[in-house]
Each structure stands twice: as structure tokens, then as C-alpha cells.
């Protein structure tokens, strides 16, 4: 096991791992984006005057935050197929991760919505902005700016949580690692390399988050 051999083998793993990393990335991106809009919707439900809607939002958040992502993914993948409505693993993974992060994002965004002074919303009403215009042009830009650090850390959590989609037959980074290790019989180096890919993704995300945060802070 001399170093040049190890390096050559690792280079050989790279193309497939990169493929897996791309799947991990777009799956997480879809989940975070869908989860953002769903999270706003869930927050709206929990803040609404209707007690049924507020209770439904609370139950939703409690279930998704109180159970493992893996269990949620198994439900989204196997329960439809058990009912005779089989869906591909990727779809189940995207839906499952989106609904999971929606629960967390609704809580994160909620702290931002509460921080906005009521006067701004009253002012928007005075200027005849509709409820929707107020939401998208007055509230949400500020909510995002306020909760950016927590949103970035949620993105990182979703990249990490997405590793379990390998269980429902999605060829993400983790799955590629499993395939490579069963072919090469060298689990230590393959899995370590896969972990390095995750580390690179999460570190870049956190750096990018800090950069954007600084820019937002300067503008404010």
C-alpha cells in the first residue's frame, strides 16, 4: 500500500464520486428551495387566526421534527408502492427531504417574521399594497436577511441528511461510495474520500453563507 498507488486509485474513484456529488447537490437544492416556499406556507398556517390551521401546522412540524429523516423517506418510498402507486426513489427523496426541511424552515422563518416591526405592515396597508405584495416585497426580503445564518445551516443539514437517500436507491454521493467500496474492497479509502466530498460541500456552503452575510450586513 504505497502512496503513489493510493493516489492513483483515489483519482480513479473521482469521476464517479463527482457524479454522486452532483446528484446530492441538486437533490438538496430542490429540497431547500421547495422547503422554503412550503415553510413560508406552514408558517402562515401556524400564524393564521384559524385554530384548525394553526393546529395542523403544529402537528406537521412536530411530526417532521420528532422523527428521523430515514423513517420519513421509507414512508414516502414504500407506502405509495404498497398502495400500488410505485414512485421512483428520486421523487420520494425529493418530496421527503422537501417536506422535512419545510418543517425546520417554517420555524426559522417564523423567528424572522416576528422580528419585523408591525408598523411596516401597517404602512404597506396604508400604501394600498395587497397582502401578497406586502408578503413578497416587504416581509420576505427582510425575513431572509434576518434568518440567513440559520437558513445556511439548514442547507448544510439537508446536504448531510440527504446521505440517507442511498437507502431508497438514489445514486447520491453515499450510494456511489457504497458501490465503489463493494467493487474495490477498499472501504476505508472510498468512504473517507466520500466524506471529504461532503466536507468540501458543507465547508463551501458555510463560507458562501458567511460571505453573503457580510454583504447583507454592509448594505443594512
Amino acid at each position: 500500500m504505497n502512496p503513489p498507488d493510493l493516489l492513483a486509485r483515489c483519482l480513479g474513484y473521482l469521476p464517479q464520486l463527482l457524479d454522486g456529488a452532483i446528484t446530492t447537490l441538486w437533490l438538496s437544492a430542490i429540497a431547500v428551495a421547495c422547503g422554503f416556499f412550503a415553510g413560508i406556507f406552514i408558517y402562515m398556517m401556524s400564524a393564521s387566526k384559524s385554530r384548525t390551521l394553526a393546529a395542523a401546522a403544529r402537528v406537521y412540524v412536530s411530526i417532521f421534527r420528532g422523527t428521523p429523516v430515514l423513517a420519513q423517506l421509507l414512508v414516502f418510498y414504500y407506502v405509495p408502492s404498497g398502495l400500488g402507486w410505485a414512485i421512483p426513489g428520486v421523487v420520494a427523496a425529493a418530496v421527503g427531504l422537501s417536506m422535512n426541511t419545510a418543517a425546520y424552515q417554517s420555524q426559522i422563518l417564523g423567528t424572522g417574521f416576528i422580528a419585523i416591526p408591525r408598523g411596516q405592515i401597517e404602512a404597506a396597508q396604508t400604501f394600498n399594497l395587497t397582502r401578497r405584495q406586502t408578503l413578497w416585497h416587504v416581509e420576505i426580503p427582510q425575513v431572509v436577511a434576518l434568518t440567513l445564518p440559520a437558513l445556511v445551516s439548514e442547507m448544510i443539514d439537508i446536504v448531510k441528511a440527504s446521505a440517507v437517500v442511498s437507502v431508497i436507491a438514489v445514486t447520491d454521493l453515499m450510494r456511489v461510495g457504497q458501490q465503489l467500496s463493494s467493487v474495490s474492497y477498499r472501504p476505508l479509502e472510498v468512504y473517507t474520500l466520500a466524506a471529504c466530498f461532503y466536507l468540501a460541500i458543507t465547508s463551501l456552503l458555510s463560507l458562501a453563507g458567511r460571505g453573503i452575510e457580510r454583504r447583507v450586513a454592509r448594505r443594512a
Partner: protein
Amino acid sequence: MNSFLSLIPRFAEAILVTLEVSLLAAFIGALGGFALNALRLRFPRWLAGPYRVYVWLVRGTPYLSQLVIVYFGLPVIGITMTAVQATIVSLAFYSAAYFAEIFRAGWASIPRGHMEAARAFGISRWSAFRSIEMPQAIAFAIPLLANQTILVIKESAVASIITVPELTMTASDIVASTYTYIAPYAMLIVCYWLLTQCIAVAARWAQALITPSRKTS
């Protein structure tokens, strides 16, 4: 409903496995995190670098990848563990990084004046740590500690991948042998939800218990 009830005995066993694995791992992880933080306070200069690298590595990678490195990777260099051992070891290693950060936040929450006052009264560093800092830091950290324990319970589901007979593995086994999907998976969600709610309730109770003593001190 009947099929649901017939699942209870197997799930009851599985809950115990999940609890045993995750509470043991969380306990070791909390002790490790506490020790790490104490060392970090005592030797700030030497430990700052290695500590930061450890936290960066653990928090930057998925728990699943740490588990497969421990279970499938370490045997390559001669360290072989059973699935349960590998889960407990990796989960403790993983959660210690988070627990250390929680204790760090706990210590950061203590006003600087307390330590200055302790020094002015000639209280030793050790008794100040034990009787002034620790009670305050831990009272501050209880909700975070409970939250981290809940995270450990949730991460322990991943151990089903390396065939630890905990809740998720049991549900998948029942699905595979009976071809019923809804009842076992519904039961799975209910079990995890109950477990995590119990921890959350216990934490609130523990905090209520501790808060009055903070007021009088």
C-alpha cells in the same frame, strides 16, 4: 387495528434497542463533550487548533459516512467491531463534537464578572469551576442538551443500514416478511415521535426543577 396491535411486542423490543444504543452514545458523547470543553478552557492555546478541526470534521460530514467509516473502514486497519459497538462508538464520537459546542455556549453565557469576583474572593479555580460556573452553564444548556439527545435518537435510525435491530430495522424487517407497508411504518413514526416527545417533556421538567434554585443563588 388488529394488525397494528400485533406489532407492539416486536416494536417494544426494538424501542429498547434504540434507547439503549442512543442513550448510551449520548451519555458518552456528553461526557466527552464536557471533558473536551473543560480541556479547552484549561489549555486554550494548545487545544484550539485540534478542537476546531475535530468539530469541523464531525459537523461537516453526514453521520452515515462516519458510521460506515467506523464499521466498514476501520476493519481494514485491524479495528473490528460489532454493528452495535460501531454504532455506539461512532454516535458518541459524532455527538461529542455537538455536546462540546453546547457546553462551550453554556460557559460563554456566564457573565465575566462572576469569575472576576471569584478570583477577588480568593476562590480556587477548581471550586469556581465546580460551584459557580458548572451549575449556571448546565442550567443554561439543558434545553440544548435535550435537543442534542433527540438528534442522537434520530440519527440512530441510520444504524438500521448496518443491521442493528433497532426501530427502523425492525419496521423494514416486518415490511419485508409480511408485505404490509402502512401499519409497520405508521408504527415506526409513532414510536420515534413518542420517544422524542418524552425527552422534550423530561427536559422541560428538569429545567423547571432547576430554575428556582437559580433564582435564590
